[in-house]
């Protein structure tokens, strides 16, 4: 009887820990590749660690230097904020606009979706950054076309005023993935709501602001969070298209971080930079999350998420 009892108990115990066994690879992975690096970089940020000497604790020196003496820091930070403010809203507005057009009953829907979606899978590649550099350079295709209309060539990549914006355009061009998220959201809006609004005599603008926009907010929220996190860390285009120039006008935060860590081997200082970026991303995300209560509308009342 007792043996049977223990057997049963063992079985239950086994069941209880079986799930843990399945998730154990992730637990190890999380500790080694996530938690350890996270805390190690926090520790390094308080040291003068470089590739050539052992980390020595220097307190807040790195942060004090960053905020009081490093000119590149403020410049890059400002550039990165500008970049986020250019690229994220433009991309999301384009994505929502075309998602709405594609949500209508139209022909060739698959063809259109393909055409609008394809750029988003290629946009992050070095190839497309090279293409961009090539299209927007002084004697590139875009200026060639502009010339035909009798307009003077625009120094898209050669002038600090335009370079960052030109790079943002590449990211806006790849709005397709956000568009598909919106499209999925739009498909869930019941048609009756539009009919009811129309019966009440609402104009299409009114329909958009009173029906579509409130009901699409969960997708908008998701896109906003993900795009913001990604934009703060943008790297490829700024390196390949302009290499940070002209006069550091596209020297984004990640480029500075990369240069400090792997160019100057100032691992301690670069860790401090990475934590400042992390905190900024966290603050931006929290701001979006906090404010979401007032503008994100969940059809099920919001408990499911």
């Amino acid at each position: 009887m007792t043996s049977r009892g223990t057997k049963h108990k063992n079985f239950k115990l086994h069941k209880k820990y079986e799930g843990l066994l399945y998730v154990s690879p992730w637990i190890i992975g999380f500790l080694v590749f996530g938690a350890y690096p996270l805390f190690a970089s926090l520790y390094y940020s308080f040291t003068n660690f470089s590739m050539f000497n052992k980390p020595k604790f220097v307190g807040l020196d790195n942060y004090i230097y960053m905020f009081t003496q490093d000119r590149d820091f403020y410049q890059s930070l400002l550039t990165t904020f500008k970049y986020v403010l250019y690229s994220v809203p433009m991309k999301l507005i384009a994505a929502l606009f075309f998602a709405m057009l594609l949500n209508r009953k139209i022909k060739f829907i698959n063809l259109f979706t393909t055409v609008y979606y394809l750029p988003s899978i290629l946009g992050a590649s070095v190839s497309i950054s090279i293409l961009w550099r090539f299209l927007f350079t002084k004697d590139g295709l875009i200026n060639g076309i502009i010339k035909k209309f009798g307009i003077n060539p625009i120094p898209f990549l050669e002038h600090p005023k335009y370079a960052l914006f030109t790079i943002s355009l590449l990211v806006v061009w790849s709005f397709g993935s956000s568009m598909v998220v919106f499209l999925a959201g739009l498909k869930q809006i019941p048609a009756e709501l539009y009919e009811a609004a129309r019966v009440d005599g609402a104009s299409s603008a009114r329909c958009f602001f009173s029906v579509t926009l409130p009901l699409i907010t969960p997708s908008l929220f998701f896109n906003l969070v993900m795009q913001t996190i990604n934009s703060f860390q943008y790297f490829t285009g700024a390196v390949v298209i302009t290499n940070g120039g002209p006069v550091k006008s596209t020297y984004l935060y990640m480029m500075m971080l990369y240069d400090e860590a792997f160019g100057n081997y100032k691992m301690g200082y670069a860790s401090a930079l990475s934590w400042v970026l992390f905190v900024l991303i966290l603050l931006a995300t929290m701001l979006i999350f906090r404010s979401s209560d007032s503008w994100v509308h969940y059809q099920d009342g919001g408990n499911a998420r």
Partner: protein
Amino acid sequence: MKKQNRISLALTYIILIIVGFIMIYPLLWLFFSTFKTNNEIFSSTRLLPEKFILSGYIDGWKGSGQFTFGYFMLNTFKMVIPTVLVTIISSSIVAYGFARFDFPFKNFLFTLMISTMMLPNAVLIIPRYLLFKNLSWLDSYKPFYMPQLFAFAGFFNFLMVQFYRGIPRELDESAYIDGYGSFRTLIHIIIPLCKPAIFSMGIFQFLWTWNDFFNPLIYINSVKKYPVSLALRMSIDSDASVPWNKVLAMSFISIVPLVILFFSAQKYFVEGVATTGLKG
């Protein structure tokens, strides 16, 4: 009312066609430019080349140093394929644990996993670099697939958990009654039903690893191991007079696998994005 509808529909088509043309034109232009001479590329805005020449491809493929471009393509596959495979295996297993079992601290761990999705790479790279250096993993593709072997990518785990949740538990229970263990149930009952999710996962991991530039730049330092992203960067960096037709031809070749993947698995791309809202 009807007339107004027809006008707005016509307007929709016009906008979709014009903007669609603008969206796709850079890609067409890239394609046709690879057949132009260096001179023609900059002197003409015409889409089609005067004469189709293949020297961009032939010279570009040969490369400038000791390696052909084909060598870099092969490197990229060596980096991407193992990463994709271990992601699929590990994430399927880990997500199964989260979706089907109760265990201590499950909710805490799940929340932790979700929050790693928002953990920026920037804050991890320096200690990771040093760790991989100590493990002698630098200049190999281990920094790409080892984290995936331990299912570090939270979004793929999340994608699979969501998908498993949509599969009725009765299937598991009847498998248990038939004497299947939980692992056999996963392999023989659950996984065959998850093909769409597994395809989506594989496709996105392929895409992201293929396009990755930042991580190879950090972890790979000898040209011998360069994937295409670094090889392309090198080709425009080397000197002031960039042989554009060569560079463009190789740029085009390096996105061909992605385009093929896209057209052969379009359904899974769209489904994957729509169900989980993954970035592209």
